């Protein structure tokens, strides 16, 4: 009986778990494969969360490097995506906290953003701009929950593992984020 048997590991065909084991054994290509599989999703989440592709690239790279350092602590009975996302979520939270001044100046100052947004030829604004603007207006915890639920399609159980928050709190955040987003986007269309 192996340690994996003892731990009730049944997902022997889980490619990510095998890639982790290969990476731990020193196969650099296995870690590269993990990056190729999961980086696009991580980068998307971080871009929407931080409102900046540049910051998102830094956060995502940092998250993967931390994952690489801690690979042997990865619990192969859980999803690699959930694990690396949990690291990324913490990196995004830290970046929002430590770069609050810059973030506030660039993204969260609604009046400044409004003033800077140029109308398109039809006199309205691009939907994509409106969405970015609306996301930036959300409370970070609500934005985080909304993105994980409706953009990354995580279950509430998976979100709870990744964020450390309770399921009922997460549901409340998602619901409030939906309400607020609807309001913000409606206002934007009517503006």
């Amino acid at each position, binding site marked *: 009986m192996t340690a994996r048997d003892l731990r009730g590991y049944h997902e022997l065909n889980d490619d990510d778990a095998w890639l982790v084991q290969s990476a731990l054994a020193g196969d650099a290509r296995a870690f590269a494969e993990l990056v190729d599989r999961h980086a696009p999703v991580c980068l998307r989440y971080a871009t929407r969360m931080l409102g900046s592709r540049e910051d998102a690239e830094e956060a995502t790279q940092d998250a993967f490097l931390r994952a690489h350092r801690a690979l042997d*602590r990865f619990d192969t009975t859980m999803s690699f995506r959930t694990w690396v996302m949990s690291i990324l979520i913490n990196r995004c939270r830290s970046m929002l906290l430590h770069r609050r001044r810059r973030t506030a100046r660039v993204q969260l100052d609604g009046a400044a953003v409004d003033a800077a947004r140029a109308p398109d030829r039809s006199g309205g604004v691009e939907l994509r701009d409106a969405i970015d603007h609306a996301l930036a207006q959300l409370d970070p915890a609500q934005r985080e929950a909304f993105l994980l639920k409706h953009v990354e399609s995580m279950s509430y159980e998976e979100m709870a593992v990744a964020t450390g928050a309770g399921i009922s709190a997460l549901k409340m955040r998602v619901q409030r984020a939906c309400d607020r987003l609807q309001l913000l986007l409606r206002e934007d269309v009517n503006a």
Partner: protein
Amino acid sequence: MRDHEPDRLPESLALAVDLMRQEEVPSAEWRDELLRRASAEPRLMRRVTLSVPWAIAAGVLCAALGGAAVVGVTRYSAGAASAARVADGVAASTTANGMMLPVTFSVVAPNAASVSIVGDFNRWNPAALPMRRSPDGRTWQVEVRLPLGLYAYAFMIDGRLAPDPAAPHAAADDFGTPNSMLVVRGS
């Protein structure tokens, strides 16, 4: 009343979410930089299980550097003391996995409500090896049987990681906590 359930996306947000789901493709430069940085980083000394000759060699090296496998009781923060001790004179038993030795971890933490040991040998699971409070109420102990090898470990005192100051420390882990190192050797 809410016009949607938390599991269901309101229809009015469907188009917006479609746009949010547009993929963000990492650039080749970004990927190369990440892989270069990952390969350049020294791996932390985690879950290192050495074959018997290498374990003995590592033990000899540690001892030569002043970090003996058997570490003594030293002062610990808040008046606590700690030790990770391979029992002297204990005959090693042989199992299918090789030589196993009993190692007693102890820490003096009179004000703690719970103490456990976490390390490479239990996948850093705080629930796996709870330490027992001694009759004097000051010392917490647990005995673990370990194969020969080199291990990183730390105490978990009331939910907080604390290194063993009596043992050599490895580099800090991802969360900034230095780990202690223990060599279990057969001689």
